[in-house]
């Protein structure tokens, strides 16, 4: 009996050691692309024998959970697919492993990936040759619309009569507003419909990601290009003010009732339930929307409309190795595998957004899905929020001030932007940047 017990103990112990040695944990947000990655990763496990455990955190808690983990030097994650804005903190505070030597050794070249994604997801300081992540999931804010409603002859003629141009993909934000307002409160198939489900969420980053889609299109710059962190006259320029005013108008005139604290899932739900003609959302959600519309009659997709300039809010993430991981070698092996062009092609086929040039430049890519061309267009015009190590401190005042103005109707757009600058100056001063 004693021998059996010892044998059992030894085998259990060796199993546990073995399973620990050959497994890694990857952290990401809980959304459709994460499921696609889980599916893709089965091939990695089959090839290498390394098990990959996943921890997917819902978006509203994603930043809190992951940044707390990093700040506490936690070992829960070996790999992290972190938001583009985290790259500064990841590099400066030493949370992420610098990947340059590994890339050189394994022959992984950043020139094989789309330049915009390398700049946004991998480098710190921005545009330098210091890489802290491999571009994993390209993304930008875009729009989906109810093509089936747009195709109805009676609606088309009524719209043309009213506005003098065709109901279709809006060429600019003014047209977008016209179209949204056209559908606001309209009865279609016996149900009351509304204009657009736009980002209004207060708690994390929602309304900022939404309003910046307009601000970028109006030509807003965060700072003086010749004098970093000098924001006066740039972030609160007349164009930026106009864009924020326009976003409020869009919310007041076109959002469905109760859409005052909405982001990704709420926008998606409003659209899928047939409440709205338009939804603002990330490309990451389009495979799901498209899957339910196999003949492409219901939904159409388009890149963020231009106003003064063509621009779109950047989303997406890079994959990084966590500095506090005890299994960095296994995590790096995963990155090496993930960077392979054949794996990147499968990633796109499964619903992930590859940033690899072999995939994006393939002649068949623009027609591979109904939103592929829009994705290509968007990735050429993306702009991101501050990627500073202090990005959360910078995000929160903007969330509050913009929500206060757009949803709460308090003050003016100029006052909201001035207030944000005031808070940002304080953050940059505390960080020694000013």
């Amino acid at each position, binding site marked *: 009996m004693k021998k059996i017990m010892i044998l059992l103990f030894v085998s259990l112990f060796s199993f546990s050691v073995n399973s620990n040695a050959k497994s890694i944990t990857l952290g990401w947000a809980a959304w459709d692309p994460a499921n696609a990655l889980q599916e893709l990763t089965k091939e990695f496990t089959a090839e290498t024998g390394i098990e990959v455990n996943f921890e997917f955190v819902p978006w509203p808690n994603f930043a809190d959970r992951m940044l707390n983990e990093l*700040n506490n030097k936690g070992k829960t994650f070996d790999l992290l697919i972190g938001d583009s804005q985290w790259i500064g903190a990841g590099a400066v505070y030493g949370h992420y492993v610098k990947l340059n030597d590994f890339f050189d050794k394994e022959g992984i070249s950043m020139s094989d990936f789309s330049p915009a994604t390398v700049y946004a997801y991998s480098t710190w300081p921005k545009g330098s040759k210091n890489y802290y992540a491999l571009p994993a999931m390209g993304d930008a804010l875009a729009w989906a619309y109810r093509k089936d409603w747009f195709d109805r002859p009676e609606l088309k003629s009524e719209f043309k009569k009213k506005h003098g141009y065709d109901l279709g993909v809006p060429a600019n934000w003014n047209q977008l507003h016209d179209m949204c307002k056209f559908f606001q409160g309209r009865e279609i198939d016996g149900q009351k419909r509304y204009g657009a489900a736009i980002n209004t969420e207060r708690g994390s980053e929602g309304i900022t990601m939404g309003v910046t889609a307009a601000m970028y299109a109006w030509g807003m710059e965060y700072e003086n290009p010749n004098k970093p962190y000098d924001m006066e006259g740039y972030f609160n320029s007349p164009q930026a003010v106009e864009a924020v005013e326009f976003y409020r108008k869009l919310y007041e005139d076109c959002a469905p*009732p*109760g859409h005052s604290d909405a982001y990704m899932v709420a926008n998606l739900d409003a659209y899928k339930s047939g409440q709205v003609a338009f939804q603002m959302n990330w490309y990451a959600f389009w495979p799901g929307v498209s899957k339910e519309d196999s003949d492409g009659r219901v939904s159409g997709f388009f890149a963020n409309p231009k106003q003064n300039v063509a621009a779109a809010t950047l989303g997406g993430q890079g994959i990084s190795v966590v500095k506090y991981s005890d299994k960095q070698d296994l995590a790096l092996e995963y990155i090496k595998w993930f960077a392979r062009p054949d794996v990147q092609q499968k990633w796109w086929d499964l619903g992930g957004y590859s940033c690899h040039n072999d995939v994006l430049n393939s002649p068949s890519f623009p027609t591979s899905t109904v939103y592929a061309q829009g994705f290509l267009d968007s990735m050429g015009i993306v702009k991101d929020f501050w990627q500073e190590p202090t990005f959360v*401190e910078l995000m929160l005042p903007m969330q509050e001030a913009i929500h206060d103005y757009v949803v709460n109707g308090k003050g003016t757009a100029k006052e909201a932007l001035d207030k944000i600058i005031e808070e940002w100056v304080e953050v940059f001063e505390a960080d020694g940047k000013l």
Partner: protein
Amino acid sequence: MSVKKKFKGLSDKAVGWLFIGPTVLLLLAINIYPLVYAIKMSFTNFYANKIGREPQFVGLKNYIKVLNKEAIWEKMQVTASFMFWTLLLQAIIGLGLALLLNRKFKGNELLTTLIVLPMMLSPAVVGVFWTYLYNPQVGLFNYVVNFFYDLGSFDMIGSSTLAPWAIVIVDTWMWTPFTMLICLAGLRSVPNYLYEAAEVDRASKWQQFIYITLPSVLPFLLLALLFRGIENFKMFDMVVELTSGGPGSATELASINLKREAFEKWKTGYSSAFAVILFVTIFGFGNVYVKVMNKIKER
């Protein structure tokens, strides 16, 4: 071995310390130490997320900054208004329900059980399902209001005028049963002979309520309001789930703002000062309140 034998040779004082020792140690570790540490941090420019950056002593700078910040006073006003209305409504409705349930009628026990159900729910869950109830398109709240008076579609949590009332209503719905239970305990402790004597003296029901019921139940009611006041001063979860502090900052209570400063912006020194100010405020109010309550009891 008997307890007596086991502790043989130890003085009463030593046995006393043996019993309370673990509790005192726990209290020191998880209450007193963090409090002292927070006070220490409040005099520094510490940022918990800036690894490797040593905190520097900044004196009273954080306190001055907190007290001079207009936004902080706005949050304090929101908190004060939330506390005032929730405590007032919970006192009136809670006492009313207690008076009702103090009577003997069929189904009394079942009704009591149903009334106390909301306070057994998790505040986060309450916050989430009230967001659905308040939904202007499909929510039951709009439907019920419009059933009695046609207001059309209105957004309780998207309007800066209505959102503060939205959180007051939910908190009142959830915690009135608590006030009711404490008041009910008070009502059941009033000896019957007082009412019998009052009947003999031909006192009206109103006079019996004013001169017997209310003075007897008042200390209980005040105790319930003390508990609720302390709880609502640090209210967080339900409001975060319901409104996230919005729209804008219309329902951003002091505790929500403190959490954002401390664990999202990571301004550890500054938020420690803010936390100390909140602690002193509630501690001071609590003490004054208890003294007033004791005086009322002595009367």
